[in-house]
């Protein structure tokens, strides 16, 4: 198992963000996490990336618990997890290419090799030729694809997606979802995707995990979760899908 989240709990003061969440992601598997806003989806991703500490439970990556990791080990862990944020989080002062190169070069990769890999990643998200541009010059979809390329360039075994299309207008959502579906189909990397895109889940997910109130309320292949909804949340998504 590539990722194993084992009964992780997280509170922000009195508010429960994660109430003993457990899930797994196998290598090359695409797992879509869905749920209403505030149900703990983004917190779960940040815990997995060690951007946020959790209160109880454990998270295992490649069989190793990541809770005890510190310093260099955490940084090494992060380099094995590409993270795509909702709001892109590009470095505005750098070019498209430099944004993609940043993690590679500073991670110790020789510049030439890093550039080759960056160019390949940009080509994979259909941004070849845009290397010299700066984020401010790009559309939202392009910016998010740069962010995807930046994560992809690390060639991570696992990619974490935090609502990658939520900040995009509907016209631009498709180009991002296309890239994501390509990646999912390639099975080159495990993907844990937090999204509200039911269609994407149905088309690309191997499994769907429904979170509500910080807890997993349903889990299974998308056809099962949405085809035979067992919870009210699943029924809402099924209706959305049907419409």
């Amino acid at each position, binding site marked *: 198992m590539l990722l194993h989240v084992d009964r992780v709990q997280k509170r922000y003061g009195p508010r429960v963000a994660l109430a003993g969440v457990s899930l797994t992601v196998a290598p090359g598997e695409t797992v879509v996490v869905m749920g209403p806003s505030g149900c703990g989806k983004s917190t779960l991703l940040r815990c997995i990336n060690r*951007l946020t500490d959790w209160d109880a439970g454990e998270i295992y990556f490649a069989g190793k618990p990541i809770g005890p990791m510190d310093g260099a080990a955490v940084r090494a862990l992060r380099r094995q997890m590409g993270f795509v944020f909702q709001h892109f989080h590009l470095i505005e002062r750098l070019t498209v290419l430099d944004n993609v190169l940043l993690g590679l070069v500073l991670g110790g990769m020789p510049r030439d090799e890093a550039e080759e890999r960056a160019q390949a990643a940009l080509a994979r998200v259909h941004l070849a030729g845009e290397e010299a541009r700066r984020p401010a010059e790009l559309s939202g979809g392009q910016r998010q694809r740069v962010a995807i390329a930046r994560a992809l360039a690390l060639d991570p075994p696992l990619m974490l997606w935090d609502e990658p299309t939520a900040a995009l207008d509907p016209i631009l959502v498709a180009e991002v979802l296309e890239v994501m579906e390509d990646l999912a189909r390639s099975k080159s990397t495990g993907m844990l995707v937090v999204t509200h895109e039911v269609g994407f889940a149905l088309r690309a997910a191997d499994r769907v995990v429904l979170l509500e109130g910080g807890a997993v309320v349903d889990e299974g292949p998308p056809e099962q979760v949405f085809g035979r909804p067992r919870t009210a949340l699943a029924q809402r998504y099924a209706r959305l899908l049907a419409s």
Partner: protein
Amino acid sequence: MSLFRDAFWREYALVVLMTILLGAGGAAAGASALDAALGDAARGLLGEAGQYHLIVHVRQGYRAAAARELERLMAAHGPAAVLHEGVTVAGNANFFLALPPEQVRQPVLEELVARLGEVPGFNGYTWLLEPSLTVSGLRPGVQALVAREAAALAGVRLAVRHGSSVTVLLESLNHQRPVAAALKALVEGRQVAEVRWPGRGEGDPASVVAAVRAALGPEFLADVTSPDEAGETRQALAALRDWLAGLAARVQVTPGPGASPLAAGERVVLQGPAPAPPEPGQPPEPQHLIVEMAAAEDGELVGRIVHGDFPPPGAEPGNGAEGELGQGGLGAGARPAGTAFRLVDGVVGPPVGEAVLVSPRWALAAGGGPDPAAGQSWDQLVQAAREAAEQLAAVVDLLAPAAASADTGQQAQRLARALRAGDGASAVREALLGVVLTALLRAGQASGDDPGVEPAEAGHPAGGDGAGDRAGVAAQLAALHQSLTRLAEAAEGLQEAAGQGGLAAVFDIQGRLLQLRDDELTRLWQAVEGAAGGPAAGQRVELLVSGSVPAARLEQVVRQAAGEEAVVIITAAGVVAPSPRALVLELLQDVRRSVAGLGALLAAAAALVLDHATVLAALGRLGCSRRAVAAVGAGLGVLLLGGIYGLSGAAIPGAGPGVVAAAGAGLGVAVALLAERLSPVQPDEIMAGQALGLSDGQILREIVVPVGRPGLLSLVNRWRRQFR
């Protein structure tokens, strides 16, 4: 130390160090530039250290005349002596004097300043001896002692006295500290107890000295009563007081039968020039005389006219008008003044007796002998002048009367002019010499050297033959010489007693004397008595005592010995101060240090805002708690401000190391708390860097600092930054 494995943090430490060094250098340079500018101004004002020895201050209006006199004075010190006219400050022209090195000796310096009184418009002087220290606030007796002791100290080249100070010229600047310490020990280890008695003859200085010596034992150091202090000024004031007392009208009241005796402080009313005597039950008339009774030295009551004027003989009507001066055996200037009435609550009361008025000034005006209570010098002067006049008249009669009269009259006018001009004893002597020479010439003519003059024809009352006449002339001349010499001596004595210009003042007073009212004269006498002639005229003693004796105990001991009437003043023996130049330089040094302190504060604040606010803001986004960030800010502030402040040589008065550290910490905390506002960072970008597995240092170097405020950190950060 694991922090410094990251190159960024090593460079960050380097930036902090560079900030301290550059900040200190900048603060010190700025302060030094100001110091240099101010130093130039000071040098312009005071000259280079050691270039001049003395500044002579002269009133601006006398500048040209003073320059000529100073040139003359300095010419006596050889061609190497320098006189330079400096700037005029506050109405004072300043002349800078330098003596040849071999003449920089105590006697030469003291003689030079002693002669500065001859400079027109002289208004003081300031020593510029360098390097030097000044001990000021010294009593005359202590001054001589300190001057002797200071001159004997190692590292002291000479000690000169001036005013109430001693300026100590050092052999080199290296001796400043030890000599200053030694001088401080000299003066601060001692105190002066001054005792004054308000009236003449009331104190017994010798017994006080003996009593204090016995009480304090070895802690009594010396009797430092200055002979000068008891000399000219006090004697002059006493002479003036007594002289005025002798000239003011006095009233003696002989109690009538049944009248209650008068007491000191009571007032009586006399008719004076009023047409009618005082009427009991009525207020005194304006022309009535009001007399205040006071206890005289012999215990009898003597009255002084405090309102009204004793009218000139023959001018007054009514009561006492019939009394001529000296009438009835009362003596010159004395006459009956009628019935004296007690003054009660501003109203004329019952008669208390018969009054006699004594007015020496009217006796003088009338040609009577001056009152014996008047100053002895005045007596001498008047008597000598009278004798000289008589002798002169005899000589004039003896010699060729017409020509001699004219010459002698001219000489007399010269004498009078000289006296009135206050030109001092030398002028008196010069004029009198002229008189004598004239007389001798006439004597020679009379003795037959000039055949055109026949003494016998002069109608000398002695008559007789030529030899007899010549003997008579010789005797007259001898008498004349003696009288004139006495006159000159008396004039000199009076001048010394009254001080510079006093003789002129005395003669001026003489001229005005007859115009003064009696009550005015009384008030003048009282003013001198109260302001200066009282205590000043009394005796005084100054005792040098060890500083280990508490002031309260010393005062108690001295008071016991001197009596309750004595005024006892305990003061420090003196104060050690740097030279005027050193004071100015010390002031400039203070300014420089303060400016450096302000520069250090500015440099530290600038560095914190421009460089470190960025880092502090980023630390908050990299997981450090707010408290930890504030602590880092405080540490940075202490390091930066303390380092810059210390290395720049800054010293703000009242800001010790603790204050500076607290200020640095406060500044650092403030910057830490406001870091996000002072230097905003992009949290999304920082999170992206974290998600990419970058270290904090890499995030700061590649993401945060490049978009932070421009500063030394961003400059240094460029060297190793990989993404331009």
